[in-house]
């Protein structure tokens, strides 16, 4: 198995790990966002709570949750490792850098965006995952939906969530197409489509997630 470690420890292998875990997290976000978007049915959280209930008790989902955390940790670990490695490759910094001339700021800032997302995620997990999995506070009279209503009464929390979603949007805007490039899927016929889907995905996911706390805060949904 030494070859496997060697492969994943090469510069290309690290990127491969980043791309695979990234795409896995991207697929998770579709499920997460899709389920949460049921709140916009404005049915008092009935559909949402049913979904949450299903997710909480289905054994496959429970197993996947472990895989998800594994993937997330790998993504974070690999990202940190790449960041530390790459930082060493230019010991003397340039005095003047005109980065905008050749690349997008968010492409150059994946580490920063990722760190912001991590901080946001810790708060987010504390708010909901910790609440629903590790406390006994979740009851039929106080559902996860009710907890959202409570949490999103704080304007500061709402602002932080919106900023987190903006970070997420930019992180995805680069990450989506970058993952395909890393996997070697660059083709004149398909790459423009991949980039377009990536952009739509990033905007829709980020916008939908951001709309949730905003909608609760302004009581746009009951």
């Amino acid at each position, binding site marked *: 198995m030494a070859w496997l470690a060697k492969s994943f420890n090469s510069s290309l292998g690290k990127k491969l790990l980043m791309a695979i875990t990234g795409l896995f997290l991207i697929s998770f976000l579709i499920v997460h966002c899709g389920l949460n978007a049921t709140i916009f049915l404005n049915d008092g959280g009935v559909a949402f709570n049913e979904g949450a209930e299903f997710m909480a008790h289905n054994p496959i989902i429970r197993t996947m949750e472990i895989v998800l955390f594994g993937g997330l940790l790998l993504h974070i670990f690999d990202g940190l490792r790449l960041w530390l490695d790459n930082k060493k*490759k230019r010991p003397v910094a340039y005095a003047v850098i005109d980065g905008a001339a050749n690349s997008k700021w968010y492409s150059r800032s994946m580490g920063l965006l990722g760190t912001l997302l991590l901080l946001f995620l810790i708060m987010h997990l504390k708010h909901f995952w910790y609440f629903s999995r590790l406390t006994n506070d979740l009851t039929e009279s106080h559902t996860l939906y009710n907890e959202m209503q409570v949490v999103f009464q704080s304007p500061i929390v709402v602002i932080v969530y919106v900023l987190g979603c903006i970070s997420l949007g930019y992180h995805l805007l680069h990450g989506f197409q970058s993952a395909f490039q*890393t996997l*070697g899927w660059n083709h004149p016929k398909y790459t423009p489509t991949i980039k377009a889907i990536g952009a739509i995905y990033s905007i829709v996911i980020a916008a939908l997630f951001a709309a949730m706390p905003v909608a609760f805060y302004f009581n746009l949904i009951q």
Partner: protein
Amino acid sequence: MEGHLNLTLKIWRQKNASVAGKFETYQVSGISTDMSFLEMIDVLNNRLIEEGDDPVAFDHDCREGICGMCSMYINGRPHGPNRGVTTCQLHMRSFQDGETITVEPWRASAFPVIKDLVVNRSAFDRIIAAGGFVSVNTGNAQDANNLPIPKEDADDAFAAAACIGCGACVAACKNASAMLFTSAKISQLALLPQGKVEAAKRAEAMVAQMDEEGFGACSNTGACEAECPKGISLENIARMNREYFSATFSSK
């Protein structure tokens, strides 16, 4: 038509690899807009010599954009403000009168500074020596037309082979990654039937050497492609990834 510029130059001066460097500021005046950037440095250097100072050391040779020897990180960009040209083909009409121009060497741990703006790019030679060739001894070849190659493949291989090995990709990359350079050679040879025989071995060996030299990983920002004076495409990096992954997961 021809005009004249007065400029302030902030140039990195470093006596050799073992001492620290710093920026020095120079004023140059009456610079013709028809001059190339290197000719402007020539003017400065001849003045420095006459004044008894050490002239600015910089790499250059063909001065027609093909040898890949010239470098210089000018105002935050490798080879200066224009796309698709090397520093030797950058002309002073691209600058404004009164402008301050900052000139730095390529910065990368794999490209240590030798003196002033001169860096050591021998890492590139070692990457090629690791596998950037077809193992064919002189005299082994069959008749050239015994091996038809689709025109599209030959054209793509040529586009990758147009790399001049200047190192602008490394200089532009926030990670000082050499993936565009390495992938251009892997790509050229992977596209051609002559190179396919050794493709897997080549990809593994060249990537390993690239890592050993201390170049960074790829963040897919596209800065290398944008700054490449020969327009080498990111598609080459994708192809290298395919070659490498299929090699590393299938080799025995």
